[in-house]
């Protein structure tokens, strides 16, 4: 069953198309990584799926219904980000007590155990929590709500390394015990990639690719060698990334399709896999160079 389906989704904000003709679908009980640079449209997309915002044109379905102003979607989907606003009249413990009224599958016990594990004080007010503590608390809400569609938008903002690791492990354990559809947006693909089944890469409001994580890992190869040999070899190939190094050597990243790797090796070209996080950066670079080109 498809939990999310978008067709030709466009969102215009002022003069800018923040989502430009996006089409994709997400299957039930999968974990998808929503990846993209700053301003790629990740938050806009998630807010439309959560029913907070309305798309300008195109078709969006969540649980086969249009999510905007929809009670079914509101009750079964949750969107977690660092802007979440809770009543200042309630302590954070009271928030955990009340949340069960909004979410049918709310697990009060899990929420309490996480609350204690991360050493929250019951009398604290959400607004006064530090940035990292706020993110941690919001994450508890996201996990314990057990919503059929759970969306985390940059959930680890401000968390320290230990808490981030705990969060990923908690997310995975709870997902195994209670499968549901999870979308997690992140700048740190290298941190979340092991958890993901699929990756949706956005670039300037457009879908760049939507692939299983394993396919993405083998999507491209890196070639290092003498510049003239590399250029000759990649003459009619699409170069994803190129970096000229000292002593006449060049590193290029090309798509990994039917490339005669054995032959390349014999010519002294060094072949290396391209980490998925690097690849996503290269794929969404505006220019084929990098920051170094600014300083030329």
């Amino acid at each position: 069953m498809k939990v999310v389906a978008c067709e030709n989704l466009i969102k215009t904000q002022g003069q800018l198309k923040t989502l430009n003709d996006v089409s994709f679908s997400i299957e039930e009980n999968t974990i998808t990584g929503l990846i993209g640079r700053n301003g790629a449209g990740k938050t806009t997309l998630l807010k439309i799926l959560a029913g907070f915002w309305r798309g300008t044109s195109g078709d969006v379905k969540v649980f086969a219904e249009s999510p905007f102003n929809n009670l079914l979607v509101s009750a079964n989907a949750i969107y977690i980000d660092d802007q979440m606003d809770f009543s200042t009249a309630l302590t954070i413990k009271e928030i955990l007590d009340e949340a069960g009224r909004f979410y049918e599958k709310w697990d009060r016990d899990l929420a309490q155990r996480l609350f204690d594990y991360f050493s929250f004080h019951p009398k604290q007010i959400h607004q006064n929590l530090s940035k990292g503590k706020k993110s941690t608390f919001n994450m508890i809400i996201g996990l314990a709500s057990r919503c059929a569609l759970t969306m985390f938008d940059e959930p680890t903002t401000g968390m320290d390394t230990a808490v981030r690791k705990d969060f990923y492990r908690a997310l995975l354990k709870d997902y195994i015990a209670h499968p549901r559809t999870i979308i997690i947006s992140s700048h740190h693909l290298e941190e979340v990639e092991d958890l993901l089944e699929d990756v949706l890469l956005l670039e300037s409001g457009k879908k760049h690719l939507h692939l299983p994580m394993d396919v993405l890992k083998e999507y491209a190869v890196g070639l290092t060698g003498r510049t003239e040999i590399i250029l000759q070899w990649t003459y009619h190939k699409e170069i994803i990334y190129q970096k000229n190094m000292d002593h006449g050597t060049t590193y290029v990243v090309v798509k990994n399709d039917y490339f005669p790797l054995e032959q390349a090796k014999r010519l002294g070209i060094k072949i290396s896999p391209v980490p998925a996080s690097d690849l996503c950066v290269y794929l969404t670079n505006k220019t084929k160079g990098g920051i170094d080109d600014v300083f030329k």
Partner: protein
Amino acid sequence: MLHTDRTKPIYIQIAEWIETEVLNGNFAQDEKVYSQYKLAEMFTINPATAAKGLNLLADEGILYNKRGLGKFVTKQAKAIITDKRKNQTLKGLIEEIVVEAGQLDVSEEELIDMLQTMYKNRKGDAK
């Protein structure tokens, strides 16, 4: 034990980990190996990725499927793994050594000498 090579697909790392467990005798013939969920939890990876690793081993005849019960080690598992590692992993490593030796102008005799010394030292350590 995983992630020594972050760029290798995880399902392959999972498959290789199970292979090593079989070679070490930690999973015997007709014994059930870990489920995709158990593996996912052990290594903090997506269960679908773990399943892909298990399926790879099933395709290679190292594991067999018992419907609803899980995956089990085949009779010929050890032989298949040993053969595969000899012909792929070991050969690849040797190729790397030969290429590196060539770049360093190390002759064939010198290289064989180094190998023999290595064997001798290892035997000495074992005593």
